[in-house]
């Protein structure tokens, strides 16, 4: 692209216009580049599907149908987006401090276990009290789980990416152990599960929709996280520490405290996702809970560039892709793993697109 040769405006507000134009250009970059990356990965997936002998046109049609084509698929999409918003926060919050936490799946499982235990301990309490107890237990347990990764990173220098992923496998082992042993419902023969939390204690659906309340929890959590990061002193301090730890220490910020709190809140979000999956979908804890919402959340957080507000639409998009998996399986005979392949492609192309920021000439007109 050629250099801009327009004459400098004589207007005394010209600088304002230029500043705005630059700001808009930068904002547009954050929308256009991920959109390009998404389009590229969809195209790559189409080629991949064509190589397996299926018609890509059918693929895109059924993906749209399964995700956003009908009212029913919209509701399915939104129900799947709910836990993904929460697990994406589990990666996005520590990311403000420069930590790469990928253990949302583990916090989800531990949160689900804790929430189920809370409900089973007080079965006869009023449902609203049981639900509060479940949410509290799930969030606390998930929060502590991820705070452990943060603490190990800060106090022992253990890499938080590896430790949080190891904790996923440990959480899964604990879940399997409890579900097949001490907490097993003797009536669950084929699929070892805990006892059910009871229909009265389920959190139900949003009035007028067939979407459970988890979606509201997710959206509220994302908005709160946004306010926390961008409009509070805590968030400001966290972003300073994320930009430059040494500078943060020089100005006297308690980096350890920041890390522990951010990781606790991150884990609490994922733990709440576990509580929602138990109290709105499964009704009990079993291995079904390890369905990969935690891993989709990592992708969503990166795609949204760790911005909690951007996480909401991205989670709905990815929830839609997840939701369309069933239709692709039935209509095109694709394996259920096709959704995983597409997610992997999106992830790789989004990361590769990082290199484009600040290098596309069309966004540089204002400056």
């Amino acid at each position, binding site marked *: 692209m050629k250099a801009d040769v327009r004459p400098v405006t004589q207007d005394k507000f010209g600088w304002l216009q230029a500043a705005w134009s630059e700001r808009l250009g930068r904002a547009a970059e954050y929308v256009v580049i991920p959109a390009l990356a998404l389009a590229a990965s969809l195209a790559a997936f189409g080629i991949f599907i064509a190589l397996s002998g299926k018609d890509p046109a059918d693929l895109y049609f059924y993906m749209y149908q399964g995700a956003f084509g009908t009212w029913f698929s919209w509701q399915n999409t939104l129900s799947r987006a709910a836990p993904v918003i929460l697990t994406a926060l589990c990666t996005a919050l520590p990311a403000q401090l420069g930590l790469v936490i990928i253990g949302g799946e583990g916090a989800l499982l531990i949160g689900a276990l804790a929430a189920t235990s809370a409900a089973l301990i007080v079965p006869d309490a009023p449902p609203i009290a049981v639900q509060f107890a479940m949410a509290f237990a799930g969030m606390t347990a998930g929060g502590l789980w991820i705070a452990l990764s943060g603490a190990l990173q800060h*106090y022992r220098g253990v890499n938080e990416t590896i430790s949080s992923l190891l904790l996923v*496998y440990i959480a899964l*082992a604990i879940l399997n152990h409890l579900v097949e042993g001490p907490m097993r419902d003797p009536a669950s023969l084929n699929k070892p599960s805990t006892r059910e939390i009871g229909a009265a204690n389920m959190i139900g659906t949003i009035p007028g929709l067939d979407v459970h309340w988890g979606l509201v929890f997710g959206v509220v959590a994302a908005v709160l996280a946004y306010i926390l990061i961008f409009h509070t002193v805590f968030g400001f301090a966290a972003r300073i520490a994320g930009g430059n730890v040494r500078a943060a220490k020089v100005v006297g910020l308690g980096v350890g405290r920041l890390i522990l709190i951010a990781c606790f809140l991150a884990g609490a979000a994922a733990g709440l996702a576990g509580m929602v999956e138990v109290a709105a979908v499964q009704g009990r804890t079993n291995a079904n809970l390890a369905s990969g919402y935690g891993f989709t959340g990592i992708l969503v957080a990166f795609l949204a560039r760790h911005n909690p507000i951007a996480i909401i639409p991205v989670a709905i998009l990815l929830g839609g892709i997840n939701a369309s998996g069933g239709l692709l399986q039935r209509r095109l005979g694709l394996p259920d793993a096709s959704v995983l392949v597409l997610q992997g492609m999106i992830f790789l192309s989004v990361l590769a697109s990082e290199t484009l920021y600040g290098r596309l000439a069309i966004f540089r007109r204002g400056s």
Partner: protein
Amino acid sequence: MADVGLWVVPIAVLGGALRVSTPFLFVSLGECITERSGRINLGLEGILVMGAMCAYGTSYLTGSAWLGVLTAGAAGALLGTVHAAICGLPRVNDIAVGIALMLFGTGLAFYLGKPLIEPTASILPAIDFGWWSNVSQVRAALQINALFLIGVVLAPLLVWALNTTRWGLILRTAGESSDAARAMGYSVNAIRMRATMLGGFFGGIGGSFLSLYYPGSWNEGLSSGQGITAVALVIFARWDPMLCFWAALLFGGAASLGPALQSVGLSQGYYLFNAAPYILTLLIMIITCSPKRTLIGAPAELSITK
């Protein structure tokens, strides 16, 4: 159950260590090469699963298990190339690409491997080192796979290659100071590309062991974090291939604790014992890492220790 004493457990753990350690060994050797060049590839978990699937598929179609091992290596090298190509772009984070590759490799393997869950393929041969004993447990423990023996040779070979050859020196230069490598006229990206490909090759071979020897079949639950454990193991082994070998044996032993206890009828807490390698990894990292200093032996360019 009465005639099987508890003395079987250490033998089973030892045998398990010799058997289960092979994927840990290959993945950690591969990761060791990649990390010595200054880049970390967390995607080896995905490469491991992809390698397992490719090996099984090739062995099933051609009847040759060794061809399967080679295909697994090639698939791993290809995924390694993808990692290196994306990381070679400016301002791309290698840890994040590794996470993406982990999801992509696993998804691709599940997708392509769907038709391979049912059929049985020919598996790798084992060499019987227990012929001198007439105790069946000892004989079972000393059934050693040829891939393990290759790994035994490979570890000291890599130490020698990294420390004394021109190739090793260039690789380590890129890992210690990319500026120095550039000043000498080498392309850091090209060096890391080759190191990541080679790392992927070994990672793929590690995967082939899972599907072609132990457990010896292809299914979606085949690998549960061996790849990522092996990455942690490299840190524990201070980026030294020989220490990787001993660490892999230790982890193999930990991983076979659950099955060994189950074989003597102790199935209580089976899942918890299965988590032993992860807990061990975490404990070892807690003990060996320090927030105050960088680790001894850590390549200076590595983002994970910076």
